[in-house]
Structure formats: structure tokens, C-alpha cells
């Protein structure tokens, strides 16, 4: 059994996984629990206020890449934060048994008992460190007015809580507020909402917080809100949810996590988007460029001219923010001046949805809540908005929305209506119609009904425009400043029908998107801005010769917003197309398209291809052959990789490969190689011949004769090439012939050799046959001998049997003799002594014969064994 077992085991040898070894170096500040001791990790957590768990799998590339980053963070924060790495893969470890992760690494943070807070941001040290710091101090302590201003002027939404700490060691609600700050890090792992706490009553009053325990959400463009404690339960989850739902998103960071995601899809579907790429260091104290951009964003979104949202900052009187007190001279704003709704405490701007796209007007309403009766106990002077009220007001407003659609006038009309929810308040909605043409000074002399030129046609229109005289958009279009100087960016987002959503991307992480949109690769400064309009399938790029600063960005936005936008569709081209004249196939790029295809004096055959398309790549050799065949003085065989080179709409194709022929002198009359023909050399030649532009009907002049002679010259050189080719073909044939000859002679030699071998083999066969006959003879002989031997044996056996018989007879004889002697003894006692003597003499010969017989039998036995052994050897 043991033997069988070991045999079967040898068949399928397996080996358990190698035992885990440490993942971090011994000197690392990270505690490495490489045997997955989760229980020990939990123990460690008791001793430290903030703990970071790094769950990894030792085989995982992402874990290995993140290891360095974690070590870097740990080396900076190890005195305040405990870093524990846990191998959560080893199947004997506690961690693997208890946790079930779908990816690695997973980073969990704990602030005392609160957690886990999963970190889902980029795996880069600065971002991780920033997040850990946020977990360490989820609340920013705001000690003074200036700090408050700093806090509120940030573009990211801020939540402020006011708590008086003099009464008790910990004022009621503080812990909940603190937890809500941590909680928000769970939901909002990018940490966009910041939480601050005020303990000084005077500072709190700046934002009209009077009661300890109030929570305030700051908003720039719309009215700031106070957490409705009396309506919503005061829990950490609720505060967090409230802040997330009501925060302003004037400008958003986009941070794709790397897995499959619809983030960009969803954001770009909302409408045209301005993507701004800047290098961002989350740990830096100041971000001057970011501040500048957010200022533009704020202005762009500032539709509510009441300034109601910013009073606190205004009267704090800091010089830091010129954006807030920018004086407005726009004609439009003069118009809106009568609409002074500053007397209303609580307002929100609403842009009514459009009924039909051709509408040139835009309805903008200012919706304000009026608290008529002083019933509310806490009456405040400074706007003090309950978000629920605004919410309710919006609800009511949308219910009555239809009444506002009819409003098409240049005046402002206000209407009041009662709230459905509260008998004590009513809403005022002041709406005006903004003529969109108004935005564009260019259009001032044109009628409103003029159809705008279609600047961008879609793919489908290619057929129509194919034969028109092409124009290629100038991609480096510089827009003179006067074009837009008369327009102001303030509140532009509400006045235009091409509202932009603004996004920020960290170019340290996501520069690839900028490259895709045409950011030049030569630049070392990773700053870039582009407007992407997914619906129209176009994008525009901020001139990369200009530096990315506030004013250029403003101009960019303004240029996009006007009706007849001076921006040109950006065409991305191949980064570094090596232009080589001596190439057989001429490689065309966006840049060289016009030059090669239209300016040259040759017939051009252009192949649209993509490297990844299997149907294109397998045609390479045909085009190379064609290019080698056609007279190079009259023909260019060119190709363009359309994945890397954008072309003006009229030259785009929707299938690859596509073959276009641009005949010399009639370049605008390009023809397409019919798709139902197979692409091969004769077909291509026929196609070119059919469409190339050599008219034959003209009477032959001198010029024509010259032409003919040139052609003949070309033909001669072609034929010479052919002859050369044929020569080499002949030599190749000769070679093949020689080779065959050699093979043949070798084969003959082989045949001869085989013949010889056959002979020798036959001889050998004969000798072998002889040998076998001899062997047969010996065999027979031996057999005979054997038979004889058997006979002899038989004889011997017979003889021994006779002897045995004789022996038996003798025994009987002896027995009878003894019987007789005995009876004689009984009769003659006295004669006993004499008789005994004689008896002895009698017995001895009989025993002797018996012994002899035994010996004989022994002898036969030995003979028999000898015989058999001899038989075996034989």
C-alpha cells in the first residue's frame, strides 16, 4: 500500500505557496504584519489616536508600487500616526480569514474608535499624507477673523460650527460635529468639504452665528445656509449629508481612480466643459495659480448681483479678494440694477430650462424668501438662510414655473407667491429675459433671425463638402483682445446658452488627458486648458503660447461664450512625426496634410489607416509595392494615421481603411476607391488609371510631344527596372536550379548508398539465415539428447522400483523367519543364548541391503536434480 501511495504521489507533485516574508524593510517606520495578524493589529490600535492600516498582497503590483509611497508618508508622520501594514493574502493569516478584499492595497484609517475610513484617492505620497492629516485634524480651529476669512474664501466648500467651550469641558453637539467631519471623509474621500470650528463669540458673529452648536455652510454664489436643527436630527450622518447635498460646486477636481468609471462621461454629458490642468501639491501652503483660477470661476458663476452671499466677507474688509468688490460696468448689469433684491434676505438664482433650442432668450429668475412676520424667534440682520426654506421655495417655484415662461421682455417682472409649507413666508421671484444676442457685440448689427453659419458640420455631411474647396482651420488662432474686451465675465454662466462646467485636473497625475487633447509635449510646464464639447464633438484649446493666468482664462471663456465664437476646433496631431523624404510611403500628419495632398504637383493616393486596425495593417505590402511601381515624379502614395491626426470635418472618414485619390490639377475632385472591390495591385492601378488626369483628346503640340518624350523616358527607366528585376529573378532561378541539382545529385548518391546498403543487408540476411539453420540443427540435436536422457532416467526409475520390490520381499522373508524363530524360542528356552548369536548374524546382512537401497535412491535424486538444472541451462 505504501508503495502504491508514493507512486501516485510522484505523478502529481504539488507545492504549497511559499511562506510569507516581510514586505517592508526592517528599518521601515511601518509595522509589517506579514503573517496577517489582524488581531495584533487591532491591539496596536488601542494605543494610538490615529492609525493607518495598509492591507496588501505580496504579489500585487499595485501594493508594491504603493509601498514606497506609504513609507514616505510614514517617515514624515510616524511620530503622530501609527502605520501598520498587514498581509491580507496569506491564507493562514487572520486577516485573510476575516476580510474579503476585491483589490489591493486597501488603506483604512482610524481616528480613535471612529473608522474605518477608506482612502480611495491617488496612491501618491502627497495625497495620502494630506488625507492622513485631514483625519488627524478633521476640524480646523478658527481663532480669529482673518482666519475665518481665509477659511471662507477658499473655493472648496466650508462648514463652520460654533461651540462655546467655557461652559463645560465639551459643549453639547461638539462631538457630533467632530464626528460629522470624520464622516464626511468617508463619503468624500477627496476631502473637498472642509470643516472648521469657532469658539470665539465675536468671530462667530461675523457669520451671524449666535448660538453655540450652530452649523454653517458657506456658499459663494448663493446664500449660505445654517443647519436646520429643528427639522433634521442633529446627527453626524445628517450634517455630512446636508453639507454634501447643498455644497456649491463652482469648480470641481476630477480625479479618476483608475478603475472602470463613467466619471468623465457623466460630467461631459452635462454640457461643454472647461478642463484646466495644473500641477497641484496638496501639501503646499499656498496655491497662487489655483486661487486665480477659482476667482475666475467664482466670477463666472456669480449670477446673483445682490452680493447677498458675501456680505460678511465684504465688511470684514480684507483687501485680499478683489473679486468680491469688482465694480460692474456691463450694460446688462445696468439693466439689472433695478432688480435690487438686497432687501430680501435669502436668495437663489434659477435659470429656467429652455423649451426649444432656437430660443434666443434666456429666463433668469432671482428667487428670494421673504419672512414677513417677525414670528421667528431668532431674528437676524445679516442674511441667515435656512436651506430648507430655500428648498421649499424652489419646489413651489418649479410648480408655478409655467407662468414664467411667457415672460419675454426686457424688464424685470416680480411676482410673489405663498409658500406651500409655511404660512408666515412668501417668495418673491423676479425674472427677466436675457437676450442672448445681447452678449455678443458682434451681432449688434445683425438681425435676430439671421441663421448662424454652421461652423461645425458632423460626420454625415462629409459627402456634400467633399468636393468643395477645402479650408483647413488654423489651429493657432490668436484672438485679439478687443474682440471680447467689452464683455465682462461676471455672472456669464447665467447669461449664456453655452454654459461651461469648470473642472480642475492635477497634471502630475492626469497629464495624459491633456496630451490627448493636444497639449504640446515639448513644454515642461504642465499647464493646459481646453474646452470639450462632447455633443458637438469638438474641443478648443487655450493658446499654449500664452501662460495660463486669470485674464487669459477669462478671455478663453468669453470667446467660447459669444455667439460667433472666434475659437477654432483644435486638431490634435502626431507628436513627433519624422518627416522622411526617402520613405516609400509618405506619412501625412495634420500639419503636412495640406502641403502634401494639395500643394504638390503630383497625383496623390491617400490611405486613411490606423495601426490597430487589422484590415489596414495587412495591406501595407500592397501599398509599398504600388509606391515602388508608380513613377515617383508624377505620383505620391501617402497615408495618414487618423487615430493620431485629426483632420477638418470634410476630410474625415468613418471607416478604415479608406483610399482617396486626388488627381493632379483637380485636387478638389477627390475620388474614393469603391469599397466593394478587393484591395490589390491590379485594382488599385486600374482605379488610378481611370481617374488620373491625362487628357488624350488634345491635339498634339510641341508641349505634348515633350510630354510624350518624358513619358517614354519614364517608361524606359521603368522597363530597365523591370529588366533588372527579371535578371535578379533569373539569377534566383539559377540558384534554385543549382540547389535542385545539388539536391538531385545528393539524392542520387543517397540512392546509390542505399543500393549498396541493400546488398550488404541481403548478404547479412543470408548469413543470418544460415546461422539460424545451424541453430535449428543444434536445437534438434539437443532435443534428441534430452529425449535420450529421459529414457535413461525412466530405466533407472524402473530399476529402482524393482529394487524396492525386492527389498519388500526380503523384509517379508525376514519377518517370517523371525516369526519362526520366536515360536522355536518358546519351545526351546535353554537354547536361547546360542540362538541370539545366530540371530545377530542373520539380521546384519538384511540391514546392510536396506542401507544400500537408500543410497541408491539418493543417487537417483541427485541425478534428477542435475538433469533438471542442466535442462535449464540448456
Amino acid at each position, binding site marked *: 500500500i505504501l508503495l502504491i501511495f508514493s507512486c501516485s504521489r510522484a505523478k502529481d*507533485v*504539488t*507545492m*504549497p*505557496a511559499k511562506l510569507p516574508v516581510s514586505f517592508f524593510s526592517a528599518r521601515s517606520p511601518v509595522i509589517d504584519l506579514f503573517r496577517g495578524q489582524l488581531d495584533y493589529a487591532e491591539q496596536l490600535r488601542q494605543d494610538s489616536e490615529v492609525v493607518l492600516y495598509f492591507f496588501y498582497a505580496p504579489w*500585487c*503590483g*499595485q501594493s508594491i508600487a504603493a509601498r514606497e509611497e506609504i513609507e514616505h508618508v510614514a517617515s514624515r508622520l510616524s511620530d503622530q500616526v501609527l502605520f501598520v501594514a498587514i498581509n491580507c493574502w496569506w491564507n493562514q493569516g487572520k486577516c485573510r480569514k476575516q476580510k474579503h478584499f476585491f*483589490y489591493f492595497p486597501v488603506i483604512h484609517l482610524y481616528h480613535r474608535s471612529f473608522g474605518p475610513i477608506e482612502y480611495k484617492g*491617488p*496612491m*501618491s*505620497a502627497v495625497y495620502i499624507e494630506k488625507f492622513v492629516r485631514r483625519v488627524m485634524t478633521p476640524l480646523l480651529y478658527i481663532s480669529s477673523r482673518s482666519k475665518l476669512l481665509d477659511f471662507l474664501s477658499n473655493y472648496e466648500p466650508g462648514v463652520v460650527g460654533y461651540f462655546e467651550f467655557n461652559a463645560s469641558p465639551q459643549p453639547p453637539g461638539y462631538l457630533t460635529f467632530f464626528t460629522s467631519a470624520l464622516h464626511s471623509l468617508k463619503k468624500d474621500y477627496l476631502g473637498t468639504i472642509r470643516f472648521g470650528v469657532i469658539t470665539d463669540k465675536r468671530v462667530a458673529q461675523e457669520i451671524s452665528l449666535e448660538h453655540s452648536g450652530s452649523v454653517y455652510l458657506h456658499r459663494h454664489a448663493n446664500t449660505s445656509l445654517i443647519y436646520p436643527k429643528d427639522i433634521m436630527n442633529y446627527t453626524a450622518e445628517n450634517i455630512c449629508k446636508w453639507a454634501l447635498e447643498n455644497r456649491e460646486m463652482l469648480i470641481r477636481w476630477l480625479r*479618476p*481612480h*483608475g*478603475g*472602470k*468609471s*463613467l*466619471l*468623465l*462621461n457623466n460630467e461631459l454629458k452635462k454640457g461643454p466643459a472647461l478642463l484646466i490642468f495644473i500641477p497641484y501639491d496638496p501639501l503646499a501652503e499656498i496655491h497662487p495659480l489655483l486661487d486665480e483660477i477659482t476667482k475666475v470661476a467664482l466670477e463666472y458663476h456669480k449670477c446673483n448681483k445682490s452680493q447677498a452671499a458675501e456680505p460678511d466677507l465684504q465688511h470684514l474688509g480684507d483687501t485680499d479678494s478683489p473679486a468680491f468688490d469688482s465694480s460692474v460696468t456691463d450694460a446688462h448689469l445696468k439693466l439689472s440694477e433695478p432688480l435690487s433684491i438686497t432687501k430680501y434676505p435669502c436668495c437663489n438664482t434659477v435659470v429656467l430650462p429652455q423649451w426649444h433650442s432656437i430660443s434666443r432668450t434666456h429666463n433668469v429668475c432671482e428667487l428670494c424668501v421673504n419672512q414677513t412676520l417677525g414670528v421667528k424667534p431668532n431674528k437676524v440682520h445679516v442674511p441667515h438662510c435656512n436651506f430648507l426654506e430655500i428648498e421649499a421655495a424652489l419646489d413651489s417655484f418649479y410648480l408655478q414655473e409655467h407662468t414664467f415662461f411667457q415672460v419675454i421682455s426686457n424688464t424685470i417682472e416680480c411676482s410673489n407667491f405663498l409658500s406651500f409649507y409655511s404660512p408666515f413666508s412668501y417668495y418673491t421671484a423676479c425674472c427677466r429675459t436675457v437676450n442672448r444676442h445681447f452678449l455678443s457685440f458682434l451681432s449688434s448689427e445683425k438681425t435676430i433671425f439671421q441663421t448662424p453659419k454652421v461652423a461645425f458640420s458632423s460626420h454625415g455631411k462629409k459627402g456634400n463638402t467633399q468636393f468643395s474647396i477645402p479650408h483647413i482651420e488654423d489651429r493657432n488662432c490668436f484672438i485679439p483682445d478687443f474682440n471680447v474686451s467689452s464683455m465682462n465675465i461676471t455672472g456669464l454662466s447665467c447669461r449664456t446658452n453655452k454654459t461651461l462646467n469648470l473642472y480642475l485636473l492635477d497634471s502630475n*497625475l*492626469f497629464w495624459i488627458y491633456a496630451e490627448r487633447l493636444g497639449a504640446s509635449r515639448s513644454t515642461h510646464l504642465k499647464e493646459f486648458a481646453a474646452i470639450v464639447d*462632447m455633443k458637438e464633438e469638438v474641443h478648443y484649446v487655450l493658446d499654449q503660447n500664452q501662460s495660463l493666468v486669470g485674464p487669459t482664462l477669462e478671455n478663453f471663456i468669453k470667446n467660447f461664450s459669444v455667439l460667433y465664437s472666434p475659437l477654432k476646433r483644435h486638431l*490634435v496631431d502626431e507628436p513627433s512625426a519624422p518627416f522622411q523624404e526617402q520613405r516609400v*510611403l509618405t*506619412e501625412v500628419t495634420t500639419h503636412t496634410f495640406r502641403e502634401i495632398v494639395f500643394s504638390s504637383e503630383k497625383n496623390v493616393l491617400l490611405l*486613411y489607416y*490606423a*495601426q*490597430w*486596425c*487589422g*484590415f489596414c*495593417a*495587412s*495591406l501595407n*505590402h500592397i501599398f509599398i509595392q504600388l509606391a*515602388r511601381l508608380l513613377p515617383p515624379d508624377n505620383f505620391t502614395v501617402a497615408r495618414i494615421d487618423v487615430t493620431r491626426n485629426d483632420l477638418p470635418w470634410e476630410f474625415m*472618414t*468613418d*471607416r478604415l*481603411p479608406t483610399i482617396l485619390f486626388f488627381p493632379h490639377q483637380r485636387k478638389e475632385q477627390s475620388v474614393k476607391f469603391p469599397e*466593394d472591390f*478587393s484591395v*490589390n495591385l491590379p485594382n488599385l*492601378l*486600374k*482605379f488610378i*488609371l*481611370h481617374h488620373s488626369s*491625362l487628357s*488624350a483628346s488634345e491635339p498634339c503640340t510641341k508641349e505634348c510631344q515633350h510630354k510624350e518624350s518624358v*513619358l517614354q523616358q519614364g517608361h524606359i527607366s521603368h522597363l530597365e527596372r523591370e529588366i533588372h528585376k527579371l535578371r535578379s*529573378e533569373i539569377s*534566383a532561378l539559377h540558384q*534554385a536550379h543549382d*540547389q535542385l541539382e545539388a539536391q538531385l545529385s545528393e539524392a542520387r548518391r543517397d540512392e546509390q548508398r542505399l543500393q549498396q546498403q541493400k546488398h550488404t543487408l541481403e548478404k547479412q540476411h543470408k548469413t543470418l539465415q544460415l546461422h539460424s539453420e545451424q541453430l535449428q540443427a543444434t536445437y534438434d540435436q539437443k532435443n534428441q539428447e534430452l529425449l535420450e536422457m529421459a529414457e535413461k532416467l525412466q530405466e533407472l526409475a524402473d530399476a529402482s522400483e524393482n529394487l524396492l520390490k525386492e527389498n519388500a520381499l526380503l523384509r517379508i522373508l525376514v519377518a517370517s523367519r523371525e516369526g519362526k524363530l520366536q515360536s522355536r524360542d518358546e519351545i526351546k528356552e535353554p537354547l536361547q543364548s546360542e540362538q541370539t548369536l545366530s540371530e545377530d548374524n542373520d539380521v546384519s546382512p538384511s540391514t546392510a541391503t536396506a542401507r544400500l537401497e537408500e543410497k541408491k535412491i539418493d543417487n537417483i535424486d541427485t541425478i534428477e536434480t542435475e538433469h533438471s538444472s542442466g535442462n535449464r541451462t540448456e
Partner: protein
Amino acid sequence: GGGRAGPGLSAVCLCCRERVRAMFYHAYEHYLESAFPYDELRPLTCDGQDTWGSFSLTLIDALDTLLILGNVSEFQRVVNVLQEGVDFDIDVNASVFETNIRVVGGLLSAHLLSRKAGVEVEAGWPCSGPLLRMAEEAARKLLPAFQTPTGMPYGTVNLLHGVNPGETPVTCTAGIGTFIVEFATLSHLTGDPVFEDVARKALKALWKNRSDIGLVGNHIDVITAKWVAQDAGIGAGVDSYFEYLVKGAILLQDKELMSMFLDYNKAIKNYTKFDDWYLWVQMYKGTVSMPVFQSLEAYWPGLQSLIGDVDNAMRTFLNYYTVWKQFGGLPEFYNIPQGYTVDKREGYPLRPELIESAMYLYRATRDPTLLELGRDAVESIEKISKVDCGFATIKDLRDHRLDNRMESFFLAETIKYLYLLFDPDNFIHNDGSDFDVVVTPYGECVLNAGGYIFNTEAHPIDPAALHCCRKRKEEHWEVEDLMREFYSLKKTKKFTLKRPSDPGEGESAKDPEDTEKAGEKRSPKKSSHSVLSCPSQSFNSKLAVLGQVFLDNT
């Protein structure tokens, strides 16, 4: 999370590429030392065994990888070793499918690459040569399997005696439809049409036996043409059938094969695709039979990218990548709703499919996510399966227990695709800017102009070579006539494009009922564009990198 913040991609590429090279030599040298001339290395016991025959399979399979890694001298040495050492006149029962893709495919690609590798070729090359003769000999040993009433081949054949009496007539779909690339190449190079003919006949038999909803099952009886296993999907048992329809269409510029694939593709999308996963369904009813993802299915995104369906390919690829991240490899079966492996199917024999797709997709998108997968694969394979004697199959992905096998596709495919992923300037990626001109007794040929078609064992075939030997003299004279026309002033106008009566190479007219049926289905689409083309990429594909996907690209 993602390690995007790392150093420049080119540095990552270079570093990983050299690690892959080291992996290759670790495995290759141990094979030569401990296992040659057996088929495969057994890495745990450091010895060899015969698995698919007795042809030193790993050596044949790894031959073109040597050239892709740039090792010309070893390539030359191995070519000599194979010419002397490999014998197909052996009494061995061999899988028709495996012998074709590994042996015939490996020898064909080595034959076509041998000039590039500096092997002194004979005058008739690429239409003759010792490796081509070996490939032909091996392929002829397989031909008896195709002698069935349906034309669909048996699964197993004895190399000496032909089909064994009492051999099972049940063959998997892939075992029937995975010949056209190698066999058509053989026919074009040698001039003997028998190979291409049997391959086409088998493909057509499958097409004829598809279900009413346009799907094929997993196993079929080649005598009676009855489906024995009726699971329809894109993975094990079917996979390379679809692959070869596309690759055959590209290699031979064959509209008929492509139309077949496009019809299958429609049915597959309709019935098996859910949330960018592909499930298994009953081939007649279309009801889901197994909600699993198979490791073998991961070739699909690569195939999609070849025909221009890059967006869908990327979406599916990202799904598959999550499975890799969960286990450090792809289990043979992965239950999608449960998010875990399936019992008895937890192994990962270092298969190449996901890496293969990453290589194709990287060509199309240059998305760094794909390099990340490559890096993950290098780390996983090195950390988990590297042993003293080579790289061992992972028997169970849950605990990373190892098995005593190193399949020959590890060196033929996994390593090759990994290396090519990290080596964008490899000659295999040639986009047509380089080419060779070869003078043969049959005329002048342009070769090695890129567009290599990989067979399903990752052996590259140069499509230009197919037009080299087969080049008919008529075509040559036709071109000559046309050229004369170019140099004369008086156009005779006799040269106009005539619609070919018989499109493609196939004998579609022979089966009127079937083509009619297929034509009916496609007729509205057919008029708009050729089936042998890719759609150009949509606007938002510019931003479809780093995991971003876009919906309704129309």
C-alpha cells in the same frame, strides 16, 4: 487606487521588459538543461515529460519568442536542432488542434522569420525551406482526421496510423474551426490547396450547423452533426473558432469569413453580453446556463480591437482586470455574481489571454492602465510561480499552491505578449515603415511590412508572404500591361474596374442557400460599407484612458 504617480512610462517599460527577458531565460535554460527533448518541463521535479506528442514541443513553441527577444544565434542553433531531431513518424495519438496550433504554427512562423534571424535560406524561400517542409509533413499527418461525412475533423489522430478505429466522433467547436490561419498559409506557400480546402470545409460545416438564433455550441458529433454540448459562449471550446474567422478574414481579405463573424458577434452581443461580461447561454434558447467568466475568454477584447471595437473592448478588459487584481491571476472559471472562483476550476496555468488583449489594446489606445496590467502580471508570476527550475502552473489561486507543470504556451505566448507589450519598437509592431524586398524564382516580393497575424498560440504569420508564392503570373502580366498604360499618352480606356463576379476567395457560389440566408440578414448594412474595415474612433475616445469609459458612442 492606481500607481499612476510613478516615474515616466518609458522607464517602467524598459525595466519591465528586461524583467520579462530574464523570466524567459530562467524558464528556457532550465527546459534545455532538465527537460529537453521532452515536450515540457516539470518545474517542481526538475525533469521533463511528453504531453502533446513527442516533438520537443516547448522548443518549437519558444522558437519565435527567441527572435522577438533578439536572440538570433540561439534561434539559428535551435533551427538546426529541430531539423535533425524532430520526427513525426511516430506511433503517438496527438490532438489535431494542439498539433496544428503549436507545431504547424510554430514551424511556419519560424520558417517565415528565419531570414530575418539570419538563417541562410535556400533559393526558393519563402516558398520552400526545411522548416516549411517539416510544417507540411506535420500538417499532412493531421489530414486523415478531416475525412468525415461532414468535413469536420476528429479531435485525435494517430500520427502513424491515422484515425484510430473506435475514436470518439465528438470534437469541440474550436477543434474544428481553428485551422484556417495555418492551413491557408501552408497552401499559399506550398501551392497545395488541400490544406486550405479542408479548413474552409470545416468552417462552413460549423456555420451551417449554427442554431436558429445564430449561436454555436461547445461540442459536436462530426459524423452526425448533432450538438453534444449546447453551451454557447466565447470561451473554452469555442474561443479560437471566432478568433480564426476574424484573423482568417484579415489574412486572406475574405469577406465571407468576416460576414460570418459579424453575424455571430451580433448574436453574442444579444444573448450573452451583460454589463460588459460575456456569459454562457443555451445555444437554442439563449437562456443563461453559466454566469461565469473563463480565463480563456480574455482574448476577446484583443480580437475586438483588431476590428475596431475599441470602446467595448476596453470596457470588457477593465472588468477582467478586476478579477486579476483579486487573485493575482485569472482562475479558469470565475463566478460573476458570487465574485469568486468556481470549485475545481481555481487554477491559473500562466495563460496569456489577458496579456494578449492588453498588447492589442495598448496599440490602439496607449493607455497606461494596460502597462499597469503588464507590471502586475510580471510581479505576480515572479512572486507566485517562480521556482528554482522554471515557472510552475498555479494549481489553486486561492492559496497559490503550485503544480508540477509549465505549459509550452508560457514561453510561446505569455512571455511573448508581455515582452511585446513593453517593447513598442519591436519589429513585430512595424507599421509598414520598414520592409524587406526578396527576390524569389517566382518574382519579387515585399515582405515583413508589418500587420503580422498571430495564430492562437502567438506564432506570427506575415500576411505579405501569402501573396508572394501564390502570386499568379496572370496578375503579374496584368500589372505589366497597366504599367505600360501609365507611360503612354493615348489612353485606351480599356482598363476600368470591373465588379468581380465572385467576391473574396471563397467559393460562396457553391452554397447558394446559405449565402442567400446570410446575405438577407446583412443586406441593409452591406451596402453602406465593406465588412473588411474598422470604424474610425469616436471623439470621446481621446479621453477614454485611465479607466474612463463612455456610453453610447454614436
